[in-house]
C-alpha cells in the first residue's frame, strides 16, 4: 500500500477565483492533514470540501446543501441509510455536516475502539454515496421546511438570512444555504449525482484525521480516499458583492410584538489582510458574540435593559452548538461586517437601532480608548487559548486554515494580538470601517410603524419598563439617541411580509 497522506501540506486546492486548476493538483492524492495523539480516547475524522451553496447554479439553489446532507443520510457503499444508522447506534456518535456558502464540512468523532468501523463509514460517505431515492425525497422535504416554516419559527435566524440575501443579490452568496422553496422540489437523485460528480474530486477535498489513530490507520484512510476522481471541478467565478449606496431598511412583518435586527455591509478585510488582527481585537471590544463586556451589550442591555444581547461581527459568525464559540468550516473569501441586535419590545424598536448604529459610528470614528484596548488585549491573551479545547476542534481550525489559505488562528493570533498597540488598532478601524452604506433588516411585529418612525425623523424615545428611572447622564444621552437621524431616505425604507420570502 502506498503512503499517500502527508503530515505537512502545501496549499494546492482550488481558490474561489477564475483560473484553471493545475494538472498536477488534479492528479495529486487527496490531501490528509494528520494530528494524531496516541493517548486520546477519541478519533476525529473530518473533511472540508469546496462544495458549498455558492456552487449552486442559478435555478438550482439548495443542491449543494442537499448533496452534502445526502452524503451521510442517503446510504453509502454497501450500506443503506438504515444500515448506516444501525452501525453508528452502539458507537453513540453520528455524522456532523456543516454547509455554508463556500465549504462543506463532514465530521465524525468516534471512540477509539471503533476506529476501523468509523474509517469505513466516513470514507464511504465521501467516496461512495448512494443517494437512495427515498432518502433524497425525505431530505428535500426537510430542506423545504427549513426555508419556509422552519425559518418563520425562528425570527432571529430569519433576519440574518434576509440580510445576506439582500447584501448579495445576484451573487453566489445570495440565496439561503438550504435553497429556495420553489426550486427544491425539482431536484432528484440524478441532480445530486451530477453535483457530486462535479465537485467531490480529489483537488476539492481536504481531509483531517486527529486523536487516537495510528499510522496504519492513517495509511488506510488515505488509500480509501483515492477512489475520488482525479479531474478538475468546474470553476466558480466569484464576482464582487453588488454595490449600493446609502442606508437601506427592510422591515419584515411578523406576528410577534417584538423587533430585532441584523444589519451590515460587505467588507474588504479578510483573515489574510494585515489589519485583521487589529480589527479582531477592535470588534471583540465593540461586541463579541454573546459576551457581556462588549460596548453594544453594555450600552443597550446592561445599562438600559433593552434586550437580551447585542453583538458585532467582523466576518460571518456561526455559533457552535450551545457554546458561544465559533463554528469552523464557514469561512468566506468575501466577508461581511454586521451587527446582531436581539429582540426588544416593538415600542423600543426604533430606539434600539439608533443606539446600536450610534455606538458603531462612534467606534468607527474614534476607535478604542487606551484602557479599553489594554483590557481587551489582556482578555484575548487568555481567551484565545479557549477557542479549541479538544483535539477535534484543533483539527477543524487547522483544516480551515489549510483549505482557505488563511493563517491558523490558534497559531498566529496570540502573537499577533500581543504585538498590537492602540495606534495600530485605531488606524485599522479608521482605514477599514465605513458605515455610510448599510443594509438594515428588521424582523418586527410592527413593520409599518417602524418604517414610519425611522424615515420621519421625529424623536423615538426609549420606553423603560415600569419603575426603571435612568440616571441623569443616561437621560441626557437617551434624548440625544431618540432624535438621532439614521439617514434612511424614504425611498430606501421598505416593508414586506415574511410569507414567501425565500420562494
Amino acid at each position: 500500500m502506498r503512503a499517500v497522506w502527508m503530515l505537512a501540506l502545501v496549499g494546492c486546492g482550488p481558490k474561489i477565483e477564475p483560473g484553471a486548476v493545475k494538472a498536477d493538483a488534479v492528479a495529486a492524492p487527496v490531501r490528509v492533514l494528520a494530528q494524531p495523539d496516541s493517548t486520546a480516547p477519541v478519533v476525529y475524522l473530518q473533511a472540508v470540501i469546496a462544495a458549498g451553496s455558492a456552487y449552486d447554479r442559478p435555478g438550482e439553489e439548495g443542491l449543494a446543501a442537499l448533496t452534502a446532507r445526502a452524503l451521510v443520510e442517503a446510504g453509502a457503499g454497501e450500506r443503506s441509510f438504515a444500515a448506516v444508522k444501525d452501525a453508528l447506534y452502539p458507537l453513540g456518535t453520528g455524522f456532523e455536516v456543516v454547509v455554508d456558502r463556500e465549504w462543506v464540512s463532514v465530521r465524525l468523532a468516534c471512540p477509539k475502539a471503533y476506529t476501523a468501523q468509523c474509517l469505513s463509514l466516513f470514507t464511504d460517505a465521501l467516496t461512495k454515496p448512494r443517494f437512495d431515492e427515498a432518502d433524497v425525497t425525505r431530505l428535500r422535504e426537510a430542506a423545504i421546511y427549513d426555508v419556509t416554516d422552519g425559518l418563520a419559527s425562528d425570527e432571529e435566524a430569519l433576519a440574518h438570512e434576509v440580510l445576506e440575501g439582500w447584501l448579495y443579490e445576484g451573487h453566489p452568496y445570495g440565496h439561503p444555504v438550504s435553497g429556495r422553496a420553489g426550486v427544491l422540489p425539482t431536484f432528484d437523485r440524478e441532480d445530486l449525482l451530477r453535483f457530486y460528480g462535479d465537485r467531490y474530486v480529489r483537488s476539492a477535498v481536504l481531509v483531517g484525521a486527529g486523536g487516537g489513530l495510528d499510522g496504519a490507520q492513517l495509511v488506510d484512510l488515505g488509500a480509501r480516499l483515492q477512489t475520488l476522481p482525479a479531474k478538475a471541478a468546474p470553476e466558480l467565478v466569484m464576482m464582487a458583492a453588488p454595490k449600493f449606496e446609502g442606508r437601506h431598511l427592510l422591515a419584515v412583518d411578523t406576528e410577534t410584538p417584538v423587533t430585532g435586527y441584523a444589519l451590515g455591509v460587505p467588507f474588504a478585510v479578510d483573515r489574510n489582510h494585515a489589519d485583521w488582527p487589529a480589527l479582531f481585537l477592535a470588534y471583540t471590544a465593540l461586541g463579541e458574540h454573546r459576551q457581556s463586556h462588549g460596548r453594544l451589550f453594555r450600552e443597550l442591555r446592561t445599562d438600559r435593559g433593552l434586550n437580551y444581547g447585542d453583538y458585532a461581527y467582523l466576518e460571518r459568525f456561526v455559533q457552535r452548538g450551545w457554546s458561544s464559540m465559533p463554528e469552523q468550516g464557514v469561512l468566506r473569501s468575501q466577508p461581511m461586517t454586521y451587527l446582531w441586535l436581539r429582540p426588544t419590545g416593538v415600542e423600543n424598536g426604533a430606539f434600539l437601532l439608533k443606539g446600536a448604529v450610534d455606538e458603531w459610528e462612534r467606534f468607527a470614528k474614534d476607535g478604542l480608548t487606551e484602557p479599553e484596548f489594554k483590557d481587551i488585549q489582556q482578555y484575548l491573551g487568555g481567551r484565545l487559548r479557549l477557542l479549541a479545547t479538544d483535539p477535534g476542534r484543533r483539527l477543524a481550525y487547522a483544516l480551515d486554515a489549510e483549505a482557505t489559505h488563511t493563517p491558523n488562528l490558534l497559531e498566529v493570533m496570540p502573537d499577533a494580538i500581543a504585538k498590537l498597540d492602540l495606534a495600530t488598532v485605531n488606524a485599522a478601524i479608521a482605514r477599514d470601517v465605513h458605515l455610510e452604506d448599510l443594509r438594515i433588516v428588521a424582523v418586527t411585529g410592527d413593520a409599518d410603524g417602524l418604517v414610519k418612525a425611522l424615515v420621519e425623523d421625529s424623536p423615538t424615545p426609549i420606553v423603560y419598563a415600569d419603575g426603571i428611572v435612568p440616571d441623569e447622564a443616561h437621560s441626557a444621552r437617551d434624548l440625544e439617541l431618540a432624535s438621532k437621524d439614521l439617514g434612511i431616505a424614504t425611498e430606501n425604507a421598505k416593508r414586506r411580509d415574511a410569507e414567501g420570502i425565500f420562494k
Partner: protein
Amino acid sequence: MSTLSLAFFVGNALAGDPAPADPAFPYPIETRTLANGLTAHVVPMPSPGVAAVYVWMTVGSRDEIDAGRTGFAHFFEHLFFYGTPTLAGKDREQTIVRLGADENAYTWNDETVYHAVIAADRVPEYLAIQADVFQHLTLTDADVRRESGAVYGEWRKGSSNPDQKVSETLWDLAFDVHTYGHDTIGWEADIKAMPTAFEYAMAFHARLYRPENARVLVVGDVKPDAVFAEIEKDFAPWQRGTEARPVIPVEPPQKGLRSVNVDWPSPTGAKVALGWKVPGNVPSDADNAALALLAEMLFADTGALNKRLVDDEKLVYEVTGFSNYFVDPGLFVADATLKEPGDLAKVRDVIKEEAVKFGAFSDAALLDKTRERMRNLGLLAIDDPDETAEALGRLMRRGGTDAWGVWDASLRAVTPMDVARVAKAYLVDDGLTIVTLTPPADAGGAQ
C-alpha cells in the same frame, strides 16, 4: 484510564477522604467537603493550559414556591453579576475581561450553574472573584429594575418559538401543584413584576445562596492540592444558611389523560407532544435507568418510531424525546413536527402505540447495544474540560459525588424485563398529557 497521577492531599481544615478514581470515569476525581458544607471536586484531565470552573447551585425554578415569583431563580442568575463592596459590577466585568474567561451561567428546574472556561494559571484568581460574589453580593434597587428588562428580552426571544410554547403548555397542564409546572423563564406577568423585586431578591439570596447548596468543580490542566487550597481560602468563610429550604409541593398521582390544543398565529409545522409522568432522575434508581434506556431505543433514529413516522409513513419531519431530566418526578416526553396538521391524531396514536409496545420488550441484544451506545455517548461527552465539568456536575446534582459510577452500575443492571416493567407501569394513559399546536388554517407556509 488516564495515566495522570493523583496528587496526595496533605491534611488541612478540609474534611473528607480522597476518593479513588471512578472505574467508569477516565479521569481521577478528588473530592473535599468544607466545614461549611460546600462540596468541591478537582478533576485533572489532559487539556493543555485550560481549565473549567463550575459552581453548581442546587437552586432552580423548582424552588419557586412563592406566588407571583416564577422565573426568580433565573432572574437571580442575572443579578449575580452585579458585584460586591470590594468589586463593583463594572469592575468585576473588567476583571473577568482581563482574565480572558469565557464565563456564563444558566438556570434550569433543579439548578443554577455559574461556569467558565479559563487559562489554567488564572483559575485561582477566578475562584477568588466567584467566592467574593457568592458571599458578598450587593444589589441596588436600580440594578434589579434594569436587569429585569434583559430578562423580559430573553422571554421575548423565546416567545415567538412554537416549540417553546408546546413545552411550556405541556408542563403547565401536566402539573397541578409541583413547581415543574412553570417554565424556568417564568410567566410573563411575573417577569413584568420583576422591576420591583429588590427586597425579594435579597431574601432569595440569603435563603438559598448558601455553601451547603453549592458544589464547585474544577476540571482540566490543574493540580488538585493547589486548587483545593485556593477553594479553602476563598470559600471557607461563607456562612451556612439559617433558613430551611422551600418545601416543594408533592404532585399527586394523575388520574386520567389530559390534553389541549394551542392555536398558533403564524405559519409553522403542526406539533404534538406527549408527556408521561415518570419517577425522578436519580442515578441509583432502577426504574429511572430502565426508562433512560427505553428512551434511547424509542427515539433513536434507528428506532421503530422514526422508521414508521419519518421513513415509512412520512408523516413528520422529526420525532424526538427524552426521559425525565429532573430530580423530582417529571415527564417522559415525545414530540414531533408534522408535515400536515390533519395527521395530528394519527401521529399521536403511533407514538402511543410504539411506546406501549415496550411493555412486551424482550430484545436483550438491542438492550446491550443501547447500553454500549450510552457508554460511548458518555465517553464522547468528556473530551474537553468544559463538557466534562458539565456532564459530571449534572450527574452529581442528581446522585452526589459517586453519581457517575452509580449511574453506570444502574444502566448495567437493567434487564429486558425491567424495560417491559417500566413501560407497563409508566407509559399509561392515566399519567399522560398531550399538547397539540396548529398553525392558522389558511397558512400556506412562508413560501
